[in-house]
């Protein structure tokens, strides 16, 4: 540090604005910005452009890692590729077999539900996105992916990998978007325990290998190994996508709630590519959005229906339990 140059700036005190004044101005500006940003509105647009402007630098910063991956990939030996190919082929065969059965099951299910027409697929279309930047620390578990508003990505879109649910988009920029992972401490996902059908909420812990289920009572029927599926509530994920597997259940005698940890099925730590998914709103399994306690989206048959006209209502004939005691109350007896 330039200790010896200390005298140089002493004369400079008298020029320019006083630091106290400019600090006050900047502090007020910052607070106004924060309030506006929380409110939403035009600052959302400003941020959209700012993050668009920041994207080139983010790309440049992540380019060494990308270049490394690229060289690694292009230098993979022939044997490795062949081995990979064999694995993929086996996997493909296995999946095709499963899909064959799945088609039949889907038709059977539709028939059981009394739906004549074949159901549309839940997933309408999907798009692969490359991971540009990964932020995995105790405070934030986020990804930056290289698809944005120009590719039709919207806020609150489901993001998956080949194994399960990854998270959802939180902020969409022109060419990139930020994905909040299910393990982010600020993320919570409505889930259903596959074995019992119990609904609960899985909350991120900040650890990429663990989710917490803090709202189940101490006597809840949960076992390690239980699969957690999305419950279709919350408006982001359709029902029935795998999220996590229960890893640990602890019943503490003094705690009214069980302490449950689950391991996400998606491979959060080694991510290079993710899948952004668009869902069919008309499918019964599509996510339900609750707006002012009114369900919108999802299955139309399960939403609030207009009340039928009164005269069409078949009035049930309730048998009277006690016979009418007096003639006055029974008009037929007059």
């Amino acid at each position, binding site marked *: *540090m*330039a*200790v010896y*140059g*200390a005298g*140089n*700036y*002493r004369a*400079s005190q008298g*020029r*320019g604005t006083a*630091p*106290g004044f*400019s*600090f006050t101005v*900047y*502090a007020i*500006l*910052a*607070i*106004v*910005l*924060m309030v*506006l*940003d*929380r409110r939403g509105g035009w*600052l959302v647009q*400003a*941020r959209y452009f*700012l*993050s668009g402007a*920041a994207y080139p*630098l*983010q790309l*440049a*910063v*992540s380019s060494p*890692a990308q270049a490394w991956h690229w060289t690694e990939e292009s230098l993979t030996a022939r044997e490795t590729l062949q081995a990979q190919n064999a694995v993929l082929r086996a996997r493909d065969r296995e999946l095709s077999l499963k899909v064959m059965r799945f088609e039949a099951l889907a038709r059977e299910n539709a028939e059981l539900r009394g739906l004549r027409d074949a159901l549309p697929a839940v997933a309408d279309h999907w798009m692969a996105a490359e991971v540009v*930047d*990964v*932020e*995995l*620390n*105790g*405070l934030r578990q*986020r990804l930056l992916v290289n698809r944005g508003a120009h590719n039709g990505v919207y806020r609150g879109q489901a993001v998956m990998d080949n194994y399960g649910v990854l998270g959802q988009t*939180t*902020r969409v920029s022109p060419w990139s978007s*930020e994905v909040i992972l299910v393990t982010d*401490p*600020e993320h919570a996902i409505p889930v259903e325990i596959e074995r019992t059908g119990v609904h609960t909420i899985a909350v991120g812990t*900040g650890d*990429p290998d663990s989710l917490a289920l803090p709202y189940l009572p101490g006597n809840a029927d949960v076992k390690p190994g239980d699969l957690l599926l999305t419950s279709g509530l919350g408006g982001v994920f359709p029902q029935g996508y795998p999220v996590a597997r229960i890893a640990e259940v602890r019943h503490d005698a003094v705690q009214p709630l069980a302490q449950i940890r689950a391991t996400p099925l998606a491979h959060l730590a080694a991510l290079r590519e993710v899948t952004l998914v668009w869902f069919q709103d008309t499918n019964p399994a599509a996510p339900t959005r609750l707006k002012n306690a009114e369900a919108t989206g999802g299955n139309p048959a399960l939403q609030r229906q207009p009340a039928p006209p009164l005269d069409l209502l078949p009035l049930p004939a309730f048998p009277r339990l006690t016979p009418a005691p007096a003639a006055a109350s029974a008009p037929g007896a007059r």
Partner: protein
Amino acid sequence: MIERTQDSIGRVLLTVVVALVLSVLPLPPWLAAVRPAFLVLTVMYWSIAAPRAGGIGLGFFCGLALDVFRGAVLGQNALALAAITYVAVREHQKIRLKPAFQQALIMLGALIAYEFILFAIDGWTGHPITNPQRWLHALTGALIWPFATAVLDRVRGVR
């Protein structure tokens, strides 16, 4: 002396951009947890060594850049960084005369104050993050301060 102030504005911008890149560079999680706040340290250096070259405005706009890159509430880092820059600019003559060890201690205090402002705003905006990891960078920042000043002194052309 005025000439030096003039030519340092280019250097200030250069160091600030480098520090921003270091701050947002993707790192493995264990390393990212102890990553010092390079941009904050750089802004602190300039506000002590050459308060006219940047000053509180520099702190504010660097903070805003951090907000954009981190996806924080716009103005959060800006307010915190402007606040500690203000103290540094006001007391720059005293801090400058301190030996490196005491300066590092002052930086520890400043970084804790900075993180505390972020923590408070996080709480007010409804997502309190109470993970103790968030305070770790203040320690590493204070440790790296003597080296950071040595590098930045060279960039500035002192010595």
